[in-house]
């Protein structure tokens, strides 16, 4: 029972981390109907830029790498770079692809993925780096002692951050003017233009917000597994979360994350041994598929409107 709980809670917490990445996808999809394949690359780019800056800034400006302000300066600069990226993406890609079929935009974001990956590694090198956020990655002591439960402190903190982010964004989408405009854009680019929604500014905003989410995800995942190319793979973990929760739902990302995280771990532990293990490569997808059969637009996704 204690083992089961451990797996379950560990899974739920990991699920929150998946949700963090999924969130980036949701934002952009909801706001422009673009399935942003580059989200994984953005996570990688953000994390790499951040660590790259913490390495170089002291060298460039000759202050101690121990200085506490370094973290914040690097974070700020990274955020600025993500805004710049968003601006560039809008200026040179999205703007020219207004009103194109979803699949074309999807493909363009794949091109973008290559671009970002090349730029990231070209700028900062292929070296794998560690990242220490100063949150210890150890079991929470009293849980271990009292209940013999191993729950990582780091995961708890990260999950809390993800939760807050989601709450804020969900509110933003549902209740603000810009949020409404974003949803309008996702429905019909041309009509959005016609009522005077400044598509271009809106896109910069969402991509920038998605960039911030990527920074958070990048820092969390980077300090878990190291800052390296494999961060782009976190996107693979986010996909089933995304479809299970619904492509357009911010809270869906969280619920999807929790379900996928927990059931993936439980399946690996209780089912894996019978079939040779390693099933977490496909289990989340199959699970999501089963959910989709019942609800074709995910748990909280917007229903596809199909009227004649």
């Amino acid at each position, binding site marked *: 029972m204690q083992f089961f709980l451990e797996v379950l809670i560990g899974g739920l917490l990991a699920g929150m981390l998946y949700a963090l990445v999924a969130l980036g996808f949701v934002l952009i999809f909801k706001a422009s109907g673009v399935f942003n394949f580059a989200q994984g690359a953005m996570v990688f780019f953000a994390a790499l830029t951040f660590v790259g800056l913490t390495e170089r800034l002291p060298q460039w400006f000759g202050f101690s790498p121990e200085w506490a302000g370094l973290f914040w300066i690097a974070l700020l600069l990274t955020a600025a770079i993500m805004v710049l990226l968003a601006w560039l993406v809008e200026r040179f890609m999205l703007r020219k692809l207004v009103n194109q079929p979803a699949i074309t935009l999807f*493909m363009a974001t794949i091109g973008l993925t290559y671009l970002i990956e090349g730029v990231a590694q070209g700028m900062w090198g292929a070296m794998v780096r560690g990242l220490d956020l100063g949150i210890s990655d150890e079991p929470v002591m009293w849980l271990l002692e009292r209940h013999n439960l191993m729950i990582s402190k780091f995961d708890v903190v990260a999950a809390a951050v993800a939760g807050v982010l989601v709450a804020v964004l969900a509110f933003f989408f549902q209740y603000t003017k810009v949020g409404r405009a974003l949803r309008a854009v996702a429905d019909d680019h041309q009509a959005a233009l016609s009522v005077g929604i400044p598509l271009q500014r809106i896109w910069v905003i969402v991509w920038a917000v998605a960039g911030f989410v990527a920074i958070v995800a990048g820092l969390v995942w980077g300090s878990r597994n190291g800052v390296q190319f494999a961060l782009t793979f976190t996107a693979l973990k986010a996909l089933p979360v995304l479809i299970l929760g619904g492509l357009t739902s911010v809270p869906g990302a969280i619920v999807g994350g929790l379900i996928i995280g927990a059931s993936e771990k439980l399946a690996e532990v209780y089912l894996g041994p019978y079939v040779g293990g390693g*099933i977490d490569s496909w289990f989340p*997808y199959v699970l999501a598929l089963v959910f989709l059969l019942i609800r074709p637009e995910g748990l909280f996704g917007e229903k596809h409107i199909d009227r004649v």
Partner: protein
Amino acid sequence: MIYREAGQFKASYEEDQQIFPIKQDRIVMATLVVAAFFVVPFVASEYWLQAVLTPVLVFALAALGLNILTGYAGQLSLGTGAFMAVGAYATYNFLLRLDGLPFLVGLALGGLSAAAVGIVFGLPSLRIKGFYLAMATLAAQFFIIWVLTKFPWFSNYSSSGIISAQRIEILGFAFDTPVSKYLLTLAIVSLLALAAKNLARTNTGRSWMAVRDMDVAAEVIGIPLMKTKLLAFAVSSFYCGIAGGLYAYTYLGTVEPDGFGLDLSFKILFMIIIGGMGSVLGAFLGAAFILLLPVGINVLMHTSVGALVPTTLASNLELIVFGVLIIFFLIVEPHGLTRLWQIGKEKLRLWPFPH
């Protein structure tokens, strides 16, 4: 003035229903085919045959398969790699386990196995649409690769899941030189491309496209959705399966399940988007583009540009240039190279008088 259709009248619907109703197109196509069969084998180097032309053909076939499903029938799929894997491994096992089975029969059986698997994974498409369906096909992608890795029976108990293709022999003739493998591939791919074109221009293809464009309306005019979608999955997977077989037998020789991973599926998806969705020609153009572009950039980077910048940077520049070119082409023409080609022709038709 070269590209004019004026003066070409069609006396019957039969003529109008030809694959290439315009004479110039027919001539170009015929020249291409003849050249591919009778000129290329004599002039192309081994490198071109083995490392460029054969894979382009194989990938074009896979892209054609995906194009049937995604381009024509509108069902977005990311499981192409897995269906190719089914084709490759099934062909291998049929040839291995049924003694004396002719190669082509083995290949066809491989394709049929892929078709069967395709139908199973196509079932969800009756309910699930768009990107959601794409994600669902990812389940197929990961599951199939996992099965092939996990159960050693499929790779005849080789220690790591790799299989190495048997020698190809058809009617006593061994296909073991690059030229013969190229010709074999070319023959199979041409036939299947012709069949695809035929499907596309007849009732079958129209039903697919109708379902793609608006499935409610399609149903209302009497197109059975289930049958049409599943047929698309089956035919598409068949093509991918055959492509997988050729990938293993005429191109690589040895393959492992991981080689059929998500990367491959994506690559093939790029091909049809860049080449042009819902177009047979597009599959070929896309395959050539996606395979040759990185090679071209690579050569460039490691020769001329490579002399100027550090090698690691050159490799990264390669990625950057590739990404930029993809975006560039999409902006120039979101409907792919085929459309670009058509617009070119239309301009040519008007030339030299713009309107």
